[in-house]
Structures are given as structure tokens and as C-alpha cells.
């Protein structure tokens, strides 16, 4: 347990010292390899601009909207497909097709259909996460031991009650794992979407720093994206701590 608090900071510190050493030796030109000091001062000024916070807020809003929409729609769809063999036969190949399609390939259409700003980014996040979440839910339902459904029948549960009281809780631990993975994907996609189809947001800020030849700000924004992404995963990890899903992880 204690090692966690020593080892992880030690690795971060080593990377920082390596960075310090490399920039002190001036091996690479300053414009392409900013020093930690320069990045730190860049961060300081960055944190005082209003733009920084509105970029963070814009990216978070897009991820929150697109991803929640995907979660809310994919779980019922997956549960339904999991229980309906005919629907599965009909729809799974198509879902698999869209799952395999890189969300980046959608960018041109996203711009043509939705213009610039929130809608194309939300659309891209949704397409990137909805299909894998549906497939994960279908797989989770397929893994439910049949004895739970026999028990449901013996104790008088029928129809939608079976879906809500057996299939959903029984597949929830696996669904949560899929949600964590998809949450990471959503955060990756928003940066790409904003770089091309945005006028604000952290992805746009990356592009903006590159256009202004501000390598120091580029690093600031990369660090911001990484920290927020890791924090989001930490938040999603809390879902696995819920009492009613612990059984799925404790074995």
C-alpha cells in the first residue's frame, strides 16, 4: 500500500529531472523542446487567463454530453439485443461495422452536418463510444449464468422485471468496466474533434499553441489534458466501489 505513495511520485520526478537535464544541455532547439521552467511560467500565465478555464469547460461539457448520451442509450440497447436473438442476428454485424470505423473518419461529415462547435464534437464522442458500449453490454448479458433466469422464473419475475432486476444488475460489473474504457476513448476523441471542428476547447488550444509557435503552451495544454483524463478515469473507477457491484470484482 505505502509503496504506491513512493514509487509513482519517484517515476514522475525522474521524468522531470531527465527533462531538466536534457533542456539544460541544449541538445534540442528551445522552440521544439521547451524547458520545464518555461513551461512552468507558461502555466502561471495560462492559469490567469479566462480562456484556459473556458477551454477546459468546453471540452468537459462535450465529453459529458456525448458520453452520457452514449451510456444512456447503449445499455438498454445492449440489454435488449442480449435477450433478443433475432435482433442480434439482424443488428450485430452493422454495429460491429460502425464500431470498427475510426471516429476520426467521421470528422468531415460531422463538420458538414453540424458545422463547428459543440454539436460535431458531441456527435463524434457519441459514435466513438455508443457502439463499443452496446457490444460490451451484449457480451455481458451473454455471460449471465442461466441459473439466475431460472430463479427469476421460479420466483415470479417476468418481462421487463427480468431485464431490470436480473439482466441489468447481473451484467453491471462488466458494463462498468466497459464504461471506464469508453470514457477514456471519449476524452481522446474530444481533443481530435476540437482540433479540426472546434473554435475552443483543449484540442483547439493545442492547435492554437502550435500555430502561435508556443511550444511551452503546447506542453501546458498537453499536461492539462493528461491530468484531466487520468482524473476522469479515477472518477469512473469509483463506480466499481458501489456495494451492489463489488461481487463482480472481488473474485
Amino acid at each position: 500500500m505505502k509503496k504506491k505513495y513512493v514509487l509513482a511520485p519517484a517515476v514522475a520526478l525522474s521524468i522531470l529531472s531527465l527533462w531538466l537535464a536534457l533542456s539544460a544541455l541544449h541538445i534540442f532547439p528551445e522552440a521544439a523542446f521547451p524547458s520545464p521552467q518555461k513551461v512552468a511560467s507558461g502555466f502561471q500565465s495560462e492559469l490567469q487567463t479566462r480562456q484556459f478555464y473556458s477551454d477546459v469547460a468546453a471540452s468537459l461539457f462535450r465529453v459529458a454530453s456525448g458520453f452520457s448520451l452514449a451510456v444512456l442509450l447503449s445499455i438498454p440497447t445492449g440489454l435488449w439485443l442480449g435477450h433478443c436473438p433475432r435482433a442480434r442476428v439482424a443488428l450485430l454485424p452493422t454495429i460491429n461495422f460502425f464500431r470498427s470505423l475510426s471516429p476520426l473518419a467521421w470528422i468531415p461529415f460531422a463538420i458538414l452536418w453540424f458545422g463547428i462547435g459543440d454539436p460535431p464534437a458531441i456527435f463524434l464522442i457519441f459514435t466513438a463510444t455508443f457502439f463499443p458500449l452496446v457490444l460490451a453490454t451484449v457480451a455481458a448479458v451473454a455471460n449471465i449464468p442461466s441459473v439466475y433466469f431460472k430463479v427469476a422464473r421460479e420466483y415470479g419475475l417476468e418481462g421487463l422485471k427480468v431485464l431490470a432486476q436480473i439482466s441489468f444488475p447481473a451484467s453491471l460489473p462488466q458494463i462498468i468496466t466497459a464504461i471506464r474504457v469508453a470514457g477514456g476513448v471519449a476524452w481522446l476523441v474530444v481533443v481530435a474533434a476540437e482540433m479540426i471542428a472546434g473554435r475552443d476547447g483543449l484540442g483547439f488550444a493545442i492547435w492554437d499553441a502550435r500555430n502561435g509557435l508556443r511550444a511551452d503552451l503546447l506542453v501546458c495544454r498537453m499536461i492539462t489534458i493528461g491530468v484531466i483524463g487520468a482524473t476522469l478515469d479515477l472518477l469512473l473507477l469509483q463506480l466499481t466501489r458501489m456495494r451492489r457491484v463489488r461481487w463482480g470484482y472481488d473474485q
Partner: protein
Amino acid sequence: MTSKLLSIDSVHFSYGALQVLRHLDLEVERDEFVSLVGPSGCGKTTLLSLISGHHKPGRGEVRRRGSMRMVYQIDSLLPWLTAAENISLGLRALSDRKQRCQRVNEMLLLTNLAGFSDHFPHQLSGGMRRRVELARVLAGETDLLLMDEPFSGLDYLTRHGLKTELERLLALKPRTVLLVTHDIEDAVYLSDRVIVLSNRPATIKYEMRLQLERPRRPADPLLLEAKERILSHLDLQEPGPLASIAVGQRAGSLV
């Protein structure tokens, strides 16, 4: 109204070309405890599936009256529900919440699980999980209980504890039970009637009624005799001298 809760009428069953059951007749009276023993793979579990309705017989008829619940060979507690909530599932017919809560607590007390109502199945030992399952099937009103190797995978002491508990619970609230087991000791200890099935395709080979007082002692010589006689019909050992079996001796008899 007859007291037959279950009647199986010359039932045949096959999985494709594999004939599992042939010409099987069985009737079970209300509140009777019947055990089915037989060689491994002879079709005992298949017979339970026919009774529970998960399979349909190829020929013949299975008639069952009233409601049915099953204790499965594998863990069937819902892992996302606490012990109390799992037991409460057995009481869904009771609409009054307070009454249901009270009954759950009664069942927890009866099965010595009082401090564990809020524990989830994965936080309980194997024996405790089995007790929760027993509490769940015995809570509420069910006419027929099917038990498929309910004591398998447990150590001797836990098994013995569970058997006495089941006996005690059934004494408080009699039920019709059909128990499938490979353990003849369990069968003679618990049953009013033991049915020995033949090798596949299975049919009834031998039937023994045990009219012995309860609670029974596992070391009772009559039980040992009964066990030996059943064993002899399972082709596992040479038949012993049957003449020495005391019929109608003491309070009980082997018929």
C-alpha cells in the same frame, strides 16, 4: 382432491440419440420427502428438469400441482442482493412490506444467519450461502421443493449441520421435497422414501420406505442397514445377508 402433488407417468426422455430415462413412473404425496439416488450421470438431474418444466418428456406425462422451487447444484443466490434481499425474493407474494421484513428476519434466525442479513453472498462462506438458499426456498408458500445435490461441495460438519437444519425447518413447516443426491447417507437420513435409479437409460430399480422416528441419528443401526441395502441395489457392493434386517423393530421399520 387427491394428495398426489406430483405424478410421473411412464416418462421417456432422450437427448438426441442418447436415451436418458425410460419408462419412469413416480408419484409423490403431499409433505412426503423423497430422495432419488443413482449412479453418476444416470439422469437424476434430467428428471428434475422434467419436473421443473425446463425440459419436456419425449413420451409420457409429468403432472405437477402447485408452485415449485428448486435448490440448484450450483450457487444460485443473486450476488447483487444481500442475504436478506435474497430471502425476501422468496416472499414476493407478500405485498405488505413490514410483514415481509418480519418473515425475512424469522428465516434468518431459523437458519442461524441473524448477524448476516446485510452481507452479500460473496462475503459468506459456502455453508452460509447454502443456508441462505434454504431460507429463500423455504420462505413463503411453495408446494414442491426440488433439491439437486444441495449439500455437494461442503465439508462433513457443514453438511451435517445443514441436514439437521433442513430437517428442523421441515418439521416446523412440512413441505413436499424431492432430493437428488449421490450421498446415500443424506438420503436415508432425511427421506420418507428412497428411490434407486438404474444406469442410463434410467428407470426405477428399487424403492425403500423409511418409517423411522425423527430426528434421526446418523449412527442408528437401522439407517446403516438401509444404507447397505440401497448400496447393494446400486451394484456397488455384494448384497449383504438381507435376513438380518430387522423389520418393524423399535419405533421404526424398513419396508
